């Protein structure tokens, strides 16, 4: 392998904004990516993640803020001189060049000698396991193969940072799952820094060292997959990443401990949140146990009684939608092959441990005060 330093680059964004006319596409994003890290920017479309990626790549200019790579300011450096690899949506392979021609393109731009180009191209194609398709045209390849050519092309010139913009979006589920593992393997083999954009939360959870959840032009939370999933710091994160049931209400006191009061429901919560705080109690479906109405909840358990409205078979699990008091729907998931016999119309009792639910403030005044420290804490 040539090149003096083929380890990952460190990337820092400081307070980056992008404003188009009256629209703020990105509003004050700061994040740091460690050398060799796999960071995913996760969010719904229009949340600013792709704009952020384009600012890093140099296709879009930040309105304010600073992007540095290994401490060097990238401002004013055109994309072709940034030495950052990028895999595009739908791959953007050059249709008039062979696979080998595509992969050789960045090396030719760098005026490498022919024999070296041939060697590096072969090496890159071998890495993505396409060594024998070098002479095909892109149109003759399947979607998954095209995706891997795009990947080979983006890494063949040894960039120290690789950006990927929804690279698996156009592929079917099976292929996507396999390619996720391939990308993971290639990341580990190369040791360079990856910044990956997706709207698919499963993909983000599988691939990433850390996930930055984008919403409305800003980052809601940044943290490891388990942190983001188990300890969402905002209601948006809780609802966007994985499934959950959120019960909206106000914090109140019930005897010696805090609880959330929502209509006729009174749910025990952990910690000592301020009285009167508007908040939502979020619980993941797999933490909810479905029991017969006669069962007694434990002292550290919340219980809600309701009627099963729908049972959805998911193969590995079954999901129950249960209508609780006041018409609110609760989700519960139980492993398939269990002995549960509840079906639609049955009365049931839903139970979960107090520590398994997360209380998230929702009220406008308390919100901004609580959100930032929560995000800090999660990192």
């Amino acid at each position, binding site marked *: 392998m040539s090149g003096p330093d083929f380890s990952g680059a460190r990337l820092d964004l400081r307070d980056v904004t992008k404003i188009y006319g009256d629209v703020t596409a990105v509003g*004050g994003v700061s*994040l740091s990516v460690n050398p060799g890290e796999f960071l995913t920017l996760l969010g719904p479309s229009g949340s600013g993640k792709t704009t952020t990626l384009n600012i890093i790549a140099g296709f879009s*200019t930040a309105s304010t803020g600073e992007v540095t790579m290994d401490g060097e300011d990238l401002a004013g450096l055109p994309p072709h001189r940034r030495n950052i690899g990028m895999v595009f949506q739908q791959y953007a392979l050059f249709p008039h060049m062979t696979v080998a021609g595509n992969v050789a393109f960045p090396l030719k731009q760098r005026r490498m000698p022919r024999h070296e180009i041939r060697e590096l191209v072969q090496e890159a194609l071998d890495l993505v396991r396409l060594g024998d398709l070098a002479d095909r045209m892109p149109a003759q390849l399947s979607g998954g193969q095209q995706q891997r050519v795009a990947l080979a092309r983006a890494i063949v010139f040894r960039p120290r940072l690789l950006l990927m913009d929804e690279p698996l979006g156009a592929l079917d589920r099976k292929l996507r799952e396999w390619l996720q593992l391939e990308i993971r393997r290639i990341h580990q083999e190369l040791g360079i820094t990856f910044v990956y954009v997706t709207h698919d939360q499963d993909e983000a959870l599988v691939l990433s060292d850390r996930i930055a959840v984008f919403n*409305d032009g800003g980052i*809601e939370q940044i943290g490891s997959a388990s942190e983001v999933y188990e300890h969402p710091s905002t209601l948006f994160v809780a609802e966007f990443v994985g499934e959950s049931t959120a019960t909206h209400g106000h914090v109140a006191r019930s005897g010696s401990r805090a609880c959330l009061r929502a209509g006729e429901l009174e749910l025990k919560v952990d910690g000592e949140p301020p009285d009167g705080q508007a908040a939502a109690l979020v619980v993941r479906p797999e933490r909810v146990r479905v029991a017969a109405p006669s069962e007694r909840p434990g002292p550290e358990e919340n219980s809600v009684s309701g009627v099963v409205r729908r049972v959805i078979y998911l193969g590995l699990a079954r999901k129950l939608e249960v209508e609780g008091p006041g018409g609110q729907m609760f989700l519960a998931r139980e492993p398939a092959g269990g002995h549960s016999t509840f079906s639609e119309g049955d009365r049931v009792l839903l139970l979960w441990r107090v520590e398994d639910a997360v209380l998230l403030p929702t009220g406008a005044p308390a919100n901004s005060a609580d959100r*930032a420290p929560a995000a800090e804490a999660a990192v």
Partner: protein
Amino acid sequence: MTVSPQDGGGRPSGGARLRGLGGRAWIPLVLPALLILAVFFFYPLAEIVRRSFAEIAPPGTSPFGNYQWFFDTPANLTILRRTIVTAVAVTAACLLVAYPYAYLMTVVGRRTRAVLLALVLVPFWTSLMVRNFAWIVLLQDQGPVNDALAAVGVGRQRLIGNVSGVTIAMIQILLPFATLPIYAVLRGIDRRLLQAAQSLGAPPWRAFLKVYLPLSAPGILAGALIVFVISLGFYVTPALLGSPTNALISQFIFIQVSTLLDWGRGGAMAVVLLVVAMVLIGLGSLAARRGQSRLSTGIDPA
């Protein structure tokens, strides 16, 4: 690392814009073409307009003298009328031939379609002079067409040096201009709509009339407009196959300028022709745009 969530409204865009790529980079690319058009096309056109007002036969009369002359001389109006009648006839004939042909192109297989398309395109790009010459050979008094007419007992007709020969040749020459836009529209019509109409109880001819024909209207409009406008200004065919006594307006303009050197009157006629053509094109594209927006909003055109 820190995360600062978005703080509601847009931040004041302080600090320098980092880099301004793109922006106006396109201007130097477009400018040369615009410049060459301005100097060698729009300026000359403006000059013709100027001369139509400035160069008046008895000097000192109204600046509209040339236009008054044009519209007050019966012979001129005869020529204008003949030009329009010819253009209407050519347009109608072109549509009648082009529509079925374009329809055929949409229903045949890929290979046949390529051949049919080539049959349209090759004459489209075949030298105008060559095609006119071919028509002279065919339509001359002792030519093959007259031979055939004599053989079937119709008798020889005078086909050259009058409007009929001009019309026949113009139809053949302008046919591709009608076929191509009609085909472009027909190709985009979902043929399943016809099946849908039939499944809803419309007999095939009715389905065609009520569904297919209205959807193809933009193509018909475009084709008719192009053929009509070109017919109005057609010079070569009338000059070669027609005669001075049956002149169309373009020949008349040509003579005014090249033989009589009367730039004022020639210019005035050119301006009339130009205005008619531009107004028609303007109306046509307006109608097309209106039709398009109606179709795209899904409101029934009926």
